[in-house]
């Protein structure tokens, strides 16, 4: 139970809001009507995140943390831009995008997981930790979809709301990218 809770807290940690920002970008074209896609997209993200988290924590994949941080910002920007260019229509590429970008996010957490879990049963803790991540993500996505749903009911145009949110996400992720460009590039 502890690792499920830890996974949930990892996702809901407001100080690490880049994860939430990515979920906001990812679910831009979705509503409750597309609940099957919602589950599929979110689970793809968790799968990619879990896989690379395990590989990074066991040093099978080693990527410098500053490059991972840059990569995470790029995933947020590209996801929002992708949906904007498609005018927020559903894409079959959604789950694949989610899987690959989830993999980038998982790399950012490998060293932390390795630190906390090496004293415990590493793989035994890995599964509940990732279940916690999935539950935390579903919670955030349900809230987002509720916001879309309520906004529609009070007469807010969904496309307008999505465009506004995309503007916010693109601005924040652009600032993140600029801040996180590794020094090695200069």
């Amino acid at each position, binding site marked *: 139970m502890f690792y499920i809770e830890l996974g949930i807290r990892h996702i809901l*940690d407001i*100080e*690490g*809001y*880049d994860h939430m920002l990515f979920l906001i970008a990812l679910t831009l074209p979705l509503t409750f009507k597309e609940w099957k896609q919602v589950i599929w997209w979110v689970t793809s993200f968790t799968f990619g995140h879990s896989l690379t988290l395990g590989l990074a924590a066991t040093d099978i994949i080693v990527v410098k943390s500053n490059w991972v941080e840059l990569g995470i910002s790029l995933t947020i920007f590209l996801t929002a831009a992708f949906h904007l260019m498609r005018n927020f229509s559903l894409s079959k590429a959604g789950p694949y995008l989610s899987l690959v970008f989830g993999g980038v996010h998982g790399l950012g957490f490998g060293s932390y997981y390795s*630190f*906390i879990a090496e004293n415990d049963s590493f793989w035994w*803790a890995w599964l509940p930790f990732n279940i916690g991540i999935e539950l935390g993500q579903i919670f955030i996505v349900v809230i987002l979809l509720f916001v879309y749903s309520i906004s529609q009911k009070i007469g807010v145009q969904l496309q307008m709301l999505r465009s*506004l949110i995309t503007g916010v996400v693109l601005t924040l992720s652009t600032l993140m990218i600029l801040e996180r460009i590794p020094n090695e590039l200069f």
Partner: protein
Amino acid sequence: MTCFGLAGFTTKVKHEFYVSVTDIYVDAQKAEINGVVKCFPDDWERAMNALLSHQLERYVKLDSATQDSLHRAYLKKHFNVKVGRQPIALTFSGIVTGPDEVYLLFEGPMAMPFEAYKEDWTVSHTLLADIYPSQENIVILHYSGQKYTSSCREGNNYEFNHSF
């Protein structure tokens, strides 16, 4: 306009992880309670520097006896374990420093029969929380082949209870 408004919003995601991992063993063979606290060397050094009375003093420059007295005092203040409401007199017994981790060893007497350690644990662990309020101290209790993992953090007032 939204974009301009957001420009003042910090984009530095503070996802630095302030965490330690502590193993506590009930060692029937040695008739003692012992274990190890693992934390990050830079965090530990910062906590030790904060204990020094002079700002210009540095923990790493101190001799090992003075460092050990700091370790002992800090652990005593920030790490408390009770079983059946009886405090266990845990004392610092050594330090091992690696490139990425610091291991603080501790031990204490087993003052009650082994079976008494099955029930009513209270672990209070504020290590490094004085400098990082978001510090999470993960604790793994080991008793008779069983294991229980929890954590001391701001959300639970840095304390938890458990019975095996």
